[in-house]
């Protein structure tokens, strides 16, 4: 236990060391905006996940500690916030939840994963729940104990759910939230997934990051076919300690890149399609542009991304150079 505490204390110090080298690489991204506001009654507490709705120009953040979903405009001004309620264990009463992740479809409907619920809550644009997706029902076996851990949505409103429990798999749902198929399952094969930590989707590409295994980044197509993997668990710059959030984007030249938030190294890494590290930005700290345990990352288009920091309890906007 003492060793673990010492390790946790040392992590930011090592990250500081990395940050100093990263400051040399500050041209990787420019800090442009920041907020600590939870949109309702004070500061953010343990925010964890970010999703940018490009159609409406809105940023959705799962403020887990505030037990609410907060909607910001592009300049990080809060527009709307609401508490997320879930059914209790007995299914009788509604209790205050702890939203973990949120994605939004083209109708403005929100799909929310909550720490205190074993279902995916589907809410209208004002935050009113109208449907609940139980992963075991989707899989056609109500005896299974499975819970959605990760969620991603593509431009055509197809939803990808990573579930854990009795089964570890990625499920694909169509735009009407009907189950299409199981895409990727946990097997002994290294080309599958073991313990996914983050998921991102774009242009028929599905990026998953592994918690313990290597390669850390695994790229699939949206039919579940393994394409490639990269990133080790060593101390090299191309390696990762905890790839907790990811995004896929294409630059103006059409080149594919991956943005990955490493929560323990306190950096955002930009990785090319061949796995080579293009640049990093961040570094441990509380000053603008620095990061304190980033856990949420979303790409907003036009080389702009938003980063949510769990310990820093804030959201920052960066322009990638």
């Amino acid at each position: 236990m003492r060793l673990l505490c010492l390790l946790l204390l040392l992590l930011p110090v090592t990250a500081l060391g990395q940050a100093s080298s990263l400051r040399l690489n500050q041209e990787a991204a420019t800090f442009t905006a920041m907020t600590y506001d939870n949109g309702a009654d004070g500061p953010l507490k343990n925010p964890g996940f970010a999703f940018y709705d490009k159609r409406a120009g809105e940023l959705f953040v799962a403020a887990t500690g505030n037990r609410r979903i907060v909607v910001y405009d592009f300049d990080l001004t809060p527009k709307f916030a609401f508490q997320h309620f879930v059914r209790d264990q007995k299914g009788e009463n509604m209790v205050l939840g702890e939203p973990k992740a949120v994605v939004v479809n083209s109708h403005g409907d929100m799909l929310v994963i909550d720490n205190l619920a074993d279902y995916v809550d589907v809410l209208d644009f004002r935050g009113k729940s109208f449907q609940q997706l139980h992963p075991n029902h989707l899989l056609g076996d109500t005896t299974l104990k499975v819970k959605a851990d990760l969620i991603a949505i593509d431009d055509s409103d197809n939803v990808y759910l990573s579930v854990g429990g009795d089964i570890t798999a990625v499920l694909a749902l169509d735009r009407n939230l009907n189950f299409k198929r199981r895409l990727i399952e946990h097997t002994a094969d290294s080309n599958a997934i073991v313990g996914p930590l983050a998921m991102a989707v774009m242009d028929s590409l599905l990026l998953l990051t592994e918690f313990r295994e290597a390669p850390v980044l695994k790229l699939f197509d949206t039919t579940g076919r393994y394409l490639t993997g990269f990133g080790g668990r060593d101390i090299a710059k191309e390696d990762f300690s905890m790839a907790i959030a990811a995004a896929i984007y294409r630059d103006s030249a059409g080149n594919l890149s991956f943005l990955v938030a490493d929560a323990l190294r306190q950096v955002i890494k930009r990785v090319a399609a061949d796995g080579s590290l293009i640049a990093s930005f961040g570094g441990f700290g509380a000053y603008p542009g620095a990061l304190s345990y980033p856990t949420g990352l979303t790409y907003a288009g036009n080389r702009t991304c938003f980063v949510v920091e769990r310990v820093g309890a804030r959201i920052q906007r960066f322009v990638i150079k």
Partner: protein
Amino acid sequence: MNAVRLQALCAGLLLLVVAAFLMPGCGAPLATRHAQGTVFASNPKIAVLPFDNYTDQDLVSAKVTEYFQTTMAGRSKFTLIENGTTFEALRRLRIRSATVLRKGQIDSLAQTLQIDYLLAGSVLEYREIGDKFLQKIPQVSINARLIDGKTGATVWTGVSNDSGDRTELLFGLGAIKSADDLSRRMVESMVRDIEGLFR
């Protein structure tokens, strides 16, 4: 002498009964105000926006919005925009709260729905408190405002706070015992006032 005393007692009782009948009318629960010098168009189109909920109870604002919708639907002095049409426009424009409406949002909404006025508001209180004699006394508080779709100005405001025992005559007679019933009456009163604005 006894006859005189009896007469006095009867007169006193009668006075009490008359007072009991008159008292509920005192202290009107609805306070309204409209912008001076405003010319209200005849037969305008009005959209009712979903009311915001500031109570600790779920769905009460949806109920009050529904009461406004149904009460206003049958009136001849204005045309009401269908609830589904309003909801769809709000969804498309991602307008989630009626409490804080920016000028740009009012303009977009008025243009999309082709309306003259927006009715927005909030429910501040909606509860039924226990009472030894009446069993429960509902207490409801609703704020509403009418916004000009062209100028974005608030042209009418209504603040209604009411309690179920206000209309009680004697021994529970005339008291309203449910918050739903009370809020429906409050909404009717507000809609009557809005109706009076238009020719």
